[in-house]
């Protein structure tokens, strides 16, 4: 069989970061090709290069599609050639019907007037193809995620797809929906559709993939032909994680004190889908001076766990008990959680952590105005002194604390968020992806800050998708999957293989 797609030596650079470094990918006509890699390995970037989201010219390297060099200027170009990408977050309009969604932007119409009979007829044919038993007039928001996924595929088929790309297609699906989707992929393969699936679930990869490409740190690590029989989960896991982690993490005295924080039988349900349990009967504890990691893939429920603890900022029907220093505490609102001496450094600093339009000074005192005010009136001198103190302590690089935080680099913004929480003098810090999107040097500084905090007797929970970071920083690591802890590893027994195995073998 010949190659339908060849991506040769693709290199894509963002300011300061090489996201893809000489990546090579070869997909044969009529196969299902799996791409595996950790979060942030560069899988999505590669697919964006392929589909023209990053247009020709914004990357180096060559794409050969269907025997000819391709230079897509945008998604439309790649779609015209039959390359359709289905993203992890579905791109359907919930209030429109299935038929309207399938032909959105591609309407069956004459001179601008939609031909409804033809639209419905073709929709029915497509729905039959993907095995979805719904009428074309059904509104998309009344469908479950699994069925919506099928609508997306039907939409792809309506555009005469030759190469179908699915980004984590089963991440949000139940077991039976996942099976149905994988069966459909195999069926489409029988009809000559080539697919690329990006997936973390290695059992699924093994079931449907004809070949696998593993990407790590923006580079192709291996291309494995499944038909040769040398595809094992161990092999993939090894390729996904094997990297050196020498001296990227500062040394720390590991001395655990008394238990600071304890969580007992914590249960959380999804805020909109009342029947979906997001966190299942979790219990954990953190000691003073301890850094406890939570590992898991996206969607495992890590952020949801943190936010549900911190003032019930996520979920509903939350049950369970939170204790600080052995006493139950009320964490039902954020200000009560702060009073209980908890702090939560959010995953997404720009939308959840900072007021971008405001100055460093104002963001620093945001969670603890009272400490710089007398009877409700802010004393600006005290406020400035506080901001200056944290600027120096955390080495925030800025001309002055009167700069707007939007002008800072990611690493310095993250330090401002940390400053905000340190100023509330917490005993427990929950750090959610504390180094996401910041450069290596800044990461090292953040690690140093974390170590200083634990040395000062704070209890730290660290959520991260970067396993080396957890391994380098934590005393213990809980491995989380589908709302549960599926294992706990001490610093000594933890390795990337061990973590990955716990996740993928679930």
């Amino acid at each position, binding site marked *: 069989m010949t190659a339908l797609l060849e991506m040769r030596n693709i290199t894509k650079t963002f300011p300061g970061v090489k996201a893809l470094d000489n990546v090579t990918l070869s997909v044969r006509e009529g196969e299902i090709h799996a791409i595996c890699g950790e979060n942030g390995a560069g899988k999505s970037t590669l697919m964006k290069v392929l589909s023209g989201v990053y247009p020709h010219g914004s990357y180096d390297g060559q794409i050969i599609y269907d025997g000819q060099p391709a230079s897509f200027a945008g998604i439309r170009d790649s779609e015209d050639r039959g390359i359709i990408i289905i993203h992890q977050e579905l791109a359907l309009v919930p209030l429109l019907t299935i038929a309207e969604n399938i032909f959105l932007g591609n309407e069956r119409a004459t001179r601008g007037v939609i031909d409804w009979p033809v639209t419905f007829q073709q929709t029915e044919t497509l729905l039959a193809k993907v095995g979805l038993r719904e009428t074309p007039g059904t509104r998309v928001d009344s469908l479950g995620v699994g069925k919506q996924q099928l609508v997306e595929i039907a939409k792809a088929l309506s555009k005469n797809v030759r190469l179908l790309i699915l980004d984590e297609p089963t991440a949000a699906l139940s077991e039976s929906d996942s099976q149905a989707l994988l069966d459909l992929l195999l069926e489409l393969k029988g009809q000559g559709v080539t697919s690329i699936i990006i997936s973390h679930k290695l059992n699924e990869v093994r079931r449907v993939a004809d070949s696998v490409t593993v990407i790590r740190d923006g580079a192709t690590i291996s291309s494995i032909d499944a038909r040769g029989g040398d595809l094992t989960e161990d092999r993939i896991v090894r390729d996904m994680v094997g990297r050196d982690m020498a001296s990227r993490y500062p040394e720390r005295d590991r001395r655990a004190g008394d238990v600071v924080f304890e969580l007992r039988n914590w249960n959380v349900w999804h805020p909109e889908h009342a029947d979906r349990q997001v966190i299942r009967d979790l219990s954990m504890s953190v000691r003073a001076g301890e850094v406890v990691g939570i590992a898991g893939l996206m969607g495992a429920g890590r952020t949801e766990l943190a936010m549900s603890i911190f003032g019930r900022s996520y979920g509903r029907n939350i049950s369970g008990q939170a204790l600080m220093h052995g006493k139950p505490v009320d964490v039902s609102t954020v200000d009560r959680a702060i009073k209980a001496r908890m702090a939560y450094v959010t995953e997404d600093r720009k939308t959840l952590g900072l007021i971008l339009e405001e100055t460093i000074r104002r963001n620093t005192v945001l969670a603890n105005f009272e400490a710089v005010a007398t009877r409700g009136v802010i004393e*600006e*001198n005290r406020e400035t002194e506080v901001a200056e103190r944290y600027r120096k302590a955390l080495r925030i690089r800025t001309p*002055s604390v009167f700069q707007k935080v939007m002008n800072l680099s990611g690493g310095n913004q993250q330090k401002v968020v940390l400053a905000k929480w340190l100023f509330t003098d917490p005993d427990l810090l929950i750090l959610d992806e504390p180094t996401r999107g910041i450069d290596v040097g800044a990461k090292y500084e953040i690690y140093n800050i974390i170590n200083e905090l634990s040395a000062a007797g704070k209890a730290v929970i660290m959520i991260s998708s970067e396993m080396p970071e957890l391994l380098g920083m934590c005393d213990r690591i809980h491995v989380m999957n589908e709302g549960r802890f599926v294992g706990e590893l001490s610093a000594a027994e933890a390795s990337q293989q061990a973590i990955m195995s716990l996740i993928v073998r679930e």
Partner: protein
Amino acid sequence: MEQTDRAPGTSIGAYITKHIREYGLLFALIAIMAFFQVVTGGVLLKPVNITNLFLQNSYIIIMALGMLLVIVGGNIDLSVGSVMGFIGALAAVMIVSWDMPVLIAGAICLVAGMVIGGVQGYFVAYWKIPSFIVTLAGMLVFRGLSLWLLAGQSIGPFPSSFQSLSTGFIPDLFGVGRPNGLALAVGAVSVGLIVWTGLRARARNTRYGIEDEPWALFLLRNGIVAVALLFVTWKLAWFRGLPNVLLSMVVLTVIYVFITERTIIGRRVYAVGGNAKAAKLSGIRTERLTFLTFVNMGFLAALAGLVFAARLNTATPKAGFAVELDVIAAVFIGGASMAGGAGKIVGAVVGAFIMGVMNNGMSIMGIGIDYQQVIKGLVLLAAVFFDVYNKNKEA
């Protein structure tokens, strides 16, 4: 890393470009006043007309103070015109028809305004209904209720004690008469205060190394403000002195500047408007704060209603009609951001004056209400366009 942010020297030109919005607003007001002064043949700045300018626009300025907080908090209030009319009607019924003492009736009116604002704020803050819809409903409800309260008639006149709320003048403590010694003294003292606080802030900023405006600009800006203030008080002194309503406006403005810039609650409103999620995750009770901005708005709308009724000396079913548009326009001309999180009290007040001077000047010129609306609309569009244009250029 981001050292590039350091201001490239503090040349006057660079500083003005960076703060083009604030200076632009001040110069726009001056330009508009100069324009109308010329085309009205000097009528605009006659003592009697300056007094009128304050009387005519007082209720807009009072409401702009509350509207600024509502808009900074990320909401809008379309009902303020109707609420203002309704409260005026309520006051007329209580004072004129029922012979209630003015003070008690006034207090009831202010509380009623807060309750009205509270009810609307409750739906916006705790039920997350868009403020546009809640207050659109409020606009219709209170328009209807004032019609019902007045039974379609005008009610008046008010006793003189009530009228003095708006049309009264502060007696000249120095007993000079004409020119009014108190007015002159107040003018001189406020100039002194403004320059003194400006200098103090400057000294403090220099101590903390904030790049500040060049001396020349500082002097020019304060010079313009001082001259304008002295000029206005001088003119007022040659008419009947300081109107009561001017005093309440100034006091309210100072209070709200203080609240927005120096108090926890004020700064939290900016935080909520700037990023509600981040504010909430920082322990700020965002719902309560939103609720309070509406209670405050209701209070000021009620106060405006009293001032307005006192000035007309009657409550009419048409009072407050379309006033919300002038108030909202004033706030946006003053540089507030539609998305919330940014905007200044002083900007809103200057914006209100710009609208007021245009209304007044065009009326003196005898321009029809039709053209007046067109011109005001274009000025609003131009002001906001100017904002957006500058933002795009920055980015």
